[in-house]
């Protein structure tokens, strides 16, 4: 259908970003193709050590899913996006395809091996999430392609993650967010993934920050180095949510807190976190 309707047609998933954008005339599609009535596009299942999310799976369904809870950082994200009403409509596939620089899912899922299964007139293909998100509001999707499934590898038992976002209120996009996933070997961090949201055109993988933790015990010194590297990796723009300096300071604070929670979760502790409000 998209191929027939031309370049100005758009897919409508949950509509919680697209409809507001249309009202503001930032988006002006000639046609909308509603995906909401297609059966079999909303599911959560575990297959061979990976969680598979149908593109039209609502945030609220992921929030309530015991299967999805197997990856705590995924639950953190689903349970904290906007508010109840938005989570009841918004979808994981729609959010990733929207590629908003302040979106939650991309930042969270970039800490884990994640693949996007795309379906188009030329058939199916699989794209790594890091390659899928190209730029602000820009993905690797062709015009006649859609997201079919999001596949996230379940991290090992000695791994723990946490996602924290700092928001002015529930319904708004976060000011800054940080996702941290650590794999521990006793007290030593074997591997670290640290991704920052809202402080660049896309979610930013803070590789220097990860390097500051990898192979180290999570001491105050290592934490400080990771925070400093994360602040340096951020490229925040001043706006109504805060100055660049303020956002950089938040980056450090969120990376610290998320890392501390990730360590506890990697030890098997049950830690509940939620988004932080100003």
């Amino acid at each position, binding site marked *: 259908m998209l191929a027939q309707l031309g370049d100005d047609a758009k897919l409508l998933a949950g*509509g*919680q970003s697209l*409809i*507001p954008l249309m*009202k*503001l005339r930032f988006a*002006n599609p*000639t046609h*909308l193709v*509603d995906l*909401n009535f297609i059966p079999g596009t909303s599911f959560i299942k575990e297959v061979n050590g990976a969680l598979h999310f149908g593109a039209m799976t609502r945030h*609220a369904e992921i929030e309530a899913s015991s299967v999805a809870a197997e990856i705590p950082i995924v639950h953190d994200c689903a349970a904290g996006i*906007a*508010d*109840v*009403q*938005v989570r*009841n*409509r918004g979808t994981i596939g729609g959010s990733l395809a929207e590629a908003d620089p302040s979106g939650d899912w991309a930042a969270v899922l970039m800490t884990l091996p994640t693949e996007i299964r795309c379906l188009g007139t030329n058939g199916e293909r699989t794209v790594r999430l890091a390659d899928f998100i190209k730029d602000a509001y820009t993905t690797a999707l062709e015009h006649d392609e859609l997201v079919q499934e999001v596949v996230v590898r379940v991290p090992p038992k000695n791994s723990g993650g946490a996602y924290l976002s700092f928001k002015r*209120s*529930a*319904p*708004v996009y976060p000011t800054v967010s940080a996702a941290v996933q650590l794999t521990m070997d006793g007290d030593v961090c074997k591997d670290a993934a640290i991704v920052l949201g809202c402080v660049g055109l896309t979610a930013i993988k803070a590789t220097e920050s990860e390097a500051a933790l990898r192979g180290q015990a999570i001491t105050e010194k290592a934490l400080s180095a990771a925070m400093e590297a994360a602040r340096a990796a951020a490229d925040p723009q001043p706006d109504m949510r805060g100055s660049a300096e303020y956002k950089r300071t938040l980056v450090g604070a969120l990376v610290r807190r998320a890392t501390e929670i990730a360590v506890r979760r990697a030890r098997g502790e049950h830690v509940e976190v*939620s988004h932080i409000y100003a």
Partner: protein
Amino acid sequence: MPEASQTIEKVTIQLTVNGKPHSVNVEPRTLLVELLRETLDLTGTHVGCDTTYCGACTVLLNGAAVKSCTMFAVQADGAEVLTVEGLEKDGQLHPIQKAFGDCFGLQCGYCTPGLMLSTLQLLSRNKQPGDKEIRKAIAGNTCRCTGYQNIFKAIQSAAENMKGV
């Protein structure tokens, strides 16, 4: 973009609103809240911000709270919609309505219909919500009178009154 003079083809949809089946012709661009207020004359559902922020337009769609300014009417084809007008039964206020009144859970009343429907989703899934759960359930409903304390008490009271219902 269509010219102003161009007529837009209407679509027929069937939906149940407050238990009553309706068959209506709508333009595809019509928002659900516009259908409710302007076509069905159910003006209890309010439009506050019209930008998916305030939650004044919250209704239940198949039991789930949604912002009716952020979906198209055609997307409710085949659905069951509950608005504030559908809360009372046989002239009796719903326990949630009664609790909002008893606890002074409203000042200007603009946000109240949305808040009561968010409360209904909460209490239909969680009979004994904790403080945090109540706060989370209404995080998408803004009260510009900032009367949240009494709204919070109203929800606690409604939960108490609805036990065993």
